């Protein structure tokens, strides 16, 4: 299915709040965090099966998460915000098993908790790294 059609469906159903096409190869969509699983599921079943990575960005009071999914040359970046004082979002490892390391990396470095992920142990930080300090947070 064409991405334009998928996005149109998403918009009609209210799954996404906003989208942006940049050229014909890059698409950014904005969603509410509770819609994450259904949006990712729909994208995966439409052919966007390759998760490139999950990017976490500290944007002040919130943490922005970007899930970059690709099919061929196109990349859809699904953008969502979680509050910094309660950075919890559902895991997508049940939909894309390859997401496990990216979730652990984001958990380690920016402190997002992926609910339902069966392994959120330290991936890159050392064992003696203090709890509740996340190197990629800015404030």
């Amino acid at each position, binding site marked *: 299915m064409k991405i334009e059609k998928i996005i149109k469906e998403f918009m009609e159903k209210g799954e996404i709040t906003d989208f942006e096409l940049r050229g014909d*190869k*890059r698409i950014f969509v904005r969603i509410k965090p509770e819609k994450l699983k259904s949006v990712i599921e729909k994208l995966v079943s439409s052919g966007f*099966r*390759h*998760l*490139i*990575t999950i*990017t976490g*960005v500290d944007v002040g009071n919130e943490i922005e998460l*970007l899930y*970059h999914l*690709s099919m*061929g*040359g*196109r*990349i859809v*970046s699904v953008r969502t915000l979680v509050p910094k004082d309660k950075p919890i979002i559902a895991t997508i490892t049940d939909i*894309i*098993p*390859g*997401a*496990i*390391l*990216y979730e652990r*990396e984001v958990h380690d*470095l920016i402190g997002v908790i992926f609910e339902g992920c069966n392994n959120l142990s*330290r*991936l*890159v*930080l*050392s064992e003696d*790294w203090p709890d509740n*300090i996340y*190197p*990629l*947070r800015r*404030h």
Partner: protein
Amino acid sequence: MSIIEVPIGPQHPALKEPLNFTFEVEGERVVGVKFRLGYNHRGIEKLAETKNYIQNTLLSARVCGICTYAHTTCYTTTVEKLMGVDIPERAQYIRVVMAELERIHSHLLWLGVMMHEIGFDTLFMYYWRDREQILDLFEIITGSRVQHAMNTVGGVRRDITQEEMKIVMKSMDRLEKRMKYYKNVTLRERTIRIRSEDVGILKPEDAIALCAVGPTLRASKIKSDVRFDDPYVAYDRVSFEVCTGDGYDVFSRILVRIDEVFESIRIIRQALEGMPSGAIRIKVPMRAEGEVVGRVEAPRGELMYYIRGDGTSKPYRVKIRTPTLANIPALCKMLEGCYIADIPAIIASIDPCIACMDRITILRNDKIEVWNWNELRRYGIKWYGKH
């Protein structure tokens, strides 16, 4: 939230990175795999936030020594897109030539290492001897064998002269002959086939679900290559095949990389012949705003940079996803149910950091033995001598 002074950021899983695996074995079979990353965690993403766009070119070059050109190409093309500038055509062609030379040197390095892991050290020496001529070409073109300092935001820093082109062409002819010989040896030599056929199976559906990339993915018969799917610099102006294998095993991964060297030679010839004249770099603004997702096909697979600018001279966020990290879940799948003796060949087959796996814990009969990589390698060769 306190301010962090220590430069710690995401790890970079490239060659020589220390990585720890824990294998749970039952007899000779591996039943579970655990691993630990981060021993070479240098905080590059955090550090990138403190440097300007030009300085970060040098930083990205130092993420990895083997695929340094892939990193700077990905970084510079992403930043150029962020700044909204188009680099001169000649620079795009030079980037293609350099990137393919790097792919050849990386693949030859890997092929040598792979042969070493299965105990075929003669071929290891041969491969590395032929790799030398690529390093010599780097030295002729850039003045440096490893860190080329060739890319900059806005183009490349050195031109390739007519004379240098002739040397590269000659070298490619020589290399093509050698590669034909290697392919022949690989297809006929029993030692290689016994150690690599049906070893480390990764089925296509697993490769997709676990988000594998690069030659690891292509050896599982998935036709996916960033150069082809999402062309950058001048890759849309050269023709080449995306090499795939259908054995899903270590042997397939060897053949895919040998075939890719042939394709790289083809690309280099086309790029040199079709190289337009003109400038090699342009001036770029020092500030950038917005966000761009950029990716290139590094020797090990898809490499991705996400860069966000806030209008200042320094990026707000630089996210790097290297191909080895993407291939780790697939590697764990390959290792499930394998023989202990096959571990070195399987781990090497995704082309990760070899020195990374500096320690391996064997849990046997509740006793813990710690082996280093060399001991494990020797065990593998000895075991196959008996079986």
